[in-house]
C-alpha cells in the first residue's frame, strides 16, 4: 500500500480483516471465564508485535490463556518454567556433538515457537533472563556461529508472582522496558468464579480449533502499522512521557519527589504501537486519545522508577500515571 492512505479504505480493510478477533474472543471465552483485560492485552501485544509481562498470583489462567490463543491462531506454543538452575542454553538451545555425524548439531530451545510462556521469569538468574529478553528484542537467536530468525508471529508472555519475592531475581528496569505491556491481573468476581467451577467439573470440554492462520496474523500486523497516528496524538504521547521525566513542567510538582526516573523513548514508541493496536481492536483506522489513555497504564507502569518517598507513602506507579493522565491536556 502506498504512503497516502485513505482512512475510509483503511477502515473498510480493518473491518474485513478483523473478523477473526470476534472468533478469537469467542474461543477464549469458551476456555477462560472473565479475564477480559488479559485477553485484550494479549491481542494488543499480538497485533502490535510486542510482548507481555504478566503479574498476578498463580491460578488466574495465565497459562491457559496463552495456550488457548496459540491453539486459536494455529501457532506453535512452548512453555518455559524458569527455575534458579536454568541455563541460557535451556531457553535458546545449544550445540550438541553428534557421534554419528562427528559434527556439532544445533539443538533449538523452546524459544523457537510462536507463543512462548516464560513462567515465573523472576525465578531464573539474570543471564537466563538476558538471553530471553535479547531474543525477544532481536527476534533472532545465535547458537554457535549460526543465527536463526524466530518465526512470525512471535509473542512472549512472561509471568511473575508479586507475593513470593524470596529467592527471586527481579528483572532489571532496563529489561522490563522491553515488554510492550505489563499487565496486572486480579481475581475473578464471584459470578466468574462460580462459572469457573461449573466449567471445570463438567464432563465434556468443548474443543476449540484454529480460527486464523499465522500468515493472516502477520498481514494484520502490517495493517496495524498503517493505522494513522496524527501529530496531535504524537504530541499527546510525548507529553505523557515527558510528564514522567519533568513533572514540574506539567504542573505536577507533587510527583517531582515521587519519580526516581521517567519513562524512556521506548515508552513513547510502545505507547504509539499499543494505541494503534487498540484502535484496530475498536475497528478504527486512526488513533484517538481514548486509545492512548486505554493502554497508558499497561505500557507505562513498568517504565517509571518510583523513589523511596513514593514507596514509603505506599504510592504505586498506577497512581502516578493516573495523576499524569488527569493533568496532561488532551488534544
Amino acid at each position, binding site marked *: 500500500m502506498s504512503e497516502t492512505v485513505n482512512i475510509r479504505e483503511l477502515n473498510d480493510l480493518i473491518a474485513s480483516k478483523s473478523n477473526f478477533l470476534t472468533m478469537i474472543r469467542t474461543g477464549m471465552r469458551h476456555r477462560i471465564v472473565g479475564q477480559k483485560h488479559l485477553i*485484550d492485552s494479549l491481542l494488543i501485544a499480538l497485533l502490535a508485535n510486542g510482548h507481555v509481562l504478566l503479574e498476578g498470583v498463580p491460578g488466574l489462567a495465565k497459562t491457559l490463556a496463552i495456550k488457548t490463543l496459540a491453539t486459536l491462531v494455529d501457532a506453535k506454543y512452548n512453555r518455559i518454567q524458569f527455575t534458579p538452575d536454568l541455563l541460557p542454553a535451556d531457553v535458546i538451545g545449544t550445540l550438541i556433538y553428534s557421534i554419528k555425524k562427528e559434527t556439532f548439531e544445533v539443538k533449538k530451545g523452546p524459544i523457537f515457537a510462536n507463543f512462548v510462556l516464560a513462567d515465573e521469569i523472576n525465578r531464573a538468574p539474570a543471564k537466563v533472563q538476558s538471553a530471553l529478553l535479547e531474543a525477544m528484542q532481536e527476534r533472532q537467536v545465535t547458537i554457535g556461529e549460526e543465527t536463526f530468525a524466530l518465526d512470525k508471529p512471535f509473542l512472549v508472555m512472561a509471568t511473575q508472582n508479586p507475593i513470593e519475592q524470596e529467592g527471586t531475581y527481579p528483572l532489571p528496569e532496563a529489561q522490563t522496558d522491553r515488554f510492550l505491556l505489563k499487565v496486572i491481573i486480579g481475581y475473578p468476581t464471584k459470578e466468574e468464579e462460580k462459572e469457573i467451577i461449573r466449567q471445570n467439573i463438567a464432563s465434556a470440554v468443548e474443543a476449540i480449533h484454529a480460527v486464523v492462520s499465522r500468515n493472516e496474523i502477520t498481514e494484520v500486523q502490517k495493517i496495524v502499522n498503517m493505522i494513522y497516528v496524527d501529530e*496531535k496524538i504524537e504530541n499527546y504521547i510525548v507529553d505523557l512521557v515527558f510528564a514522567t521525566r519533568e513533572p514540574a513542567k506539567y504542573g505536577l510538582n507533587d510527583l517531582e519527589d515521587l519519580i526516581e526516573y521517567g519513562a524512556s523513548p521506548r515508552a513513547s514508541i510502545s505507547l504509539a504501537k499499543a494505541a494503534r493496536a*487498540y484502535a484496530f481492536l475498536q475497528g478504527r483506522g*486512526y488513533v484517538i486519545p481514548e486509545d492512548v489513555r486505554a493502554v497508558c497504564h*499497561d505500557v507505562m507502569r513498568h517504565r517509571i522508577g518510583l523513589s523511596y518517598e513514593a514507596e514509603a507513602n505506599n504510592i504505586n506507579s498506577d497512581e502516578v500515571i493516573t495523576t499524569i493522565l488527569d493533568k*496532561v491536556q*488532551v488534544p
Partner: protein
Amino acid sequence: MKIKNIILSLACFGSCSAAMAGPVMLNARLDSATMLMGNVNTLHIEVVQDKGVRGNFPLFEKFGPEGIVTLLNDTVELRQPVKVDTVDVGSGRIQINYEVPVQVFDSGYYKLPAFVFAAGRDTARSKELLLTVTPVNVTADDPIAPYTDVSDPENQSIFDKLPDWLYYYWWLYLLAIILIVGGIYFWKRYRKEGTLMPKKPEKTPYQRAIDDLKRLKARKLWESGREKEYYTQLTEILRTYLDGRFGIQAMEMTSGEIMSHLADLGDHDIPRDKMRDVLDMADFVKFAMVRPLPDDNVALFKDAVDFVESTKPLDNSEINVSARIDNKVPEDGKQKDDSNVSTSAHAGGRYKGVGRRGRMARLDETPDRISAKRLKVGKKINRRESSSGNNSVKPDSNGNERKEVMK
C-alpha cells in the same frame, strides 16, 4: 624695459619688507562705553606683533596680591586678565587678545589713559578710552521691605500661632501624610487581593464562550481550508466552557469522558446530542484527517452555540446547578467520596463536579462503551455523508476533488 624695472623694484621692496620686523600694533576697546556703578565691564586689548618677540604691559606688572590695579586715583579698578588668546595672523605675526574686567565704584565720566605695550625696542600705545559710569537709583525713602503693623495678640488667626516650620513647609507635611495614607491603603489592598492593579470584572463562562465563538467565526478558519485548527479551537472553547460552567475538567478529558460526565449531571435540559455531534466531528477532523462539508461546519457551529445558549445560566442558576451536583445523593444512599469530586471556582460561585479521577477510559473498563459509541458516531457520519450525496468529496479552492486523505 620699463616694466621690467618696475617688477624688479617691487620684488626688492617686498623682500626688504619681509626681512624687516613689523611694528607692534595695539588696539583697546570697552564692551560698553556706559556702565552701571559697581558692575563689571570688559576691556578688550589686542596686540599684533612678530612671532617670537617677547612683550609686556608695564601696567600689568603692577597687579598686587589681590590681582587688582587701579587707575585715575584709584577710581577705576582693573583685574587680572581672565582670558589670553593667541592667534596666528600669518606673515610671521601673531595677535594676542586680552580681556580685562573693569569695575568702577563711583559715578562720573572717565577717560582711561592709553595702554602701553613694550615688545623689544618697539613700544605701542592704544588710544584713550572714554567711560561713563552711571549711579544706581537709590533713595533713602525706599524701604527694603514693606512696613507692617505689629500684630494684635487678640485678633491672631490660627495660622499666626503656627510654628514657622509648619507655617512655611505645610505643603511638605501634607504631601508626606498623603503618601503615608496612600501607602497604607495600597499595602492593605495588596495583602487582600495580591495585586495593586485593579482587577477587571471577570467574564462569566457563558460570556467568555460566546465571545470566543464569535471571534472564531470571524477568523473564517474552515473557509480557508484550516478545518483542523477550526475544530481544535471550537472544542477548546466548549471544553473551557464546561469547566467554568459545570466544573467538568474537560481540558484533560477525552470526548467520551466529557459525554460521560455530562450524563452524570442528570440535567435533562442539557442538549448532550449537540455536544456529542461537535465532539465526534472534531475527533474525526483532528485525528482522522476528515474534511467535513461546509454545511456540516455551519451546522456544528450552530450546535456549539445552541449548547452554550441552552445551558446559559439564568441569574444565579449557575449556583443552582452547583447545588444540584452537591446535593446529588448516590443510589445506595451513602455519602459520595470526596476524592472523586473536584471543585472549581468562578464568577458564579463554587461548583462541585465529578472530578478528573472520576472516569478514565481504561482498557479493562470501557472498550465496549467506546466501541459502541464509535460505531454509533460512524453511522451518524455516514448518514450525513450519504444525505449530502457525494460523501465527503468536495472541490477545493483549485477546483480539484478533496478527499479524506492522509499521509
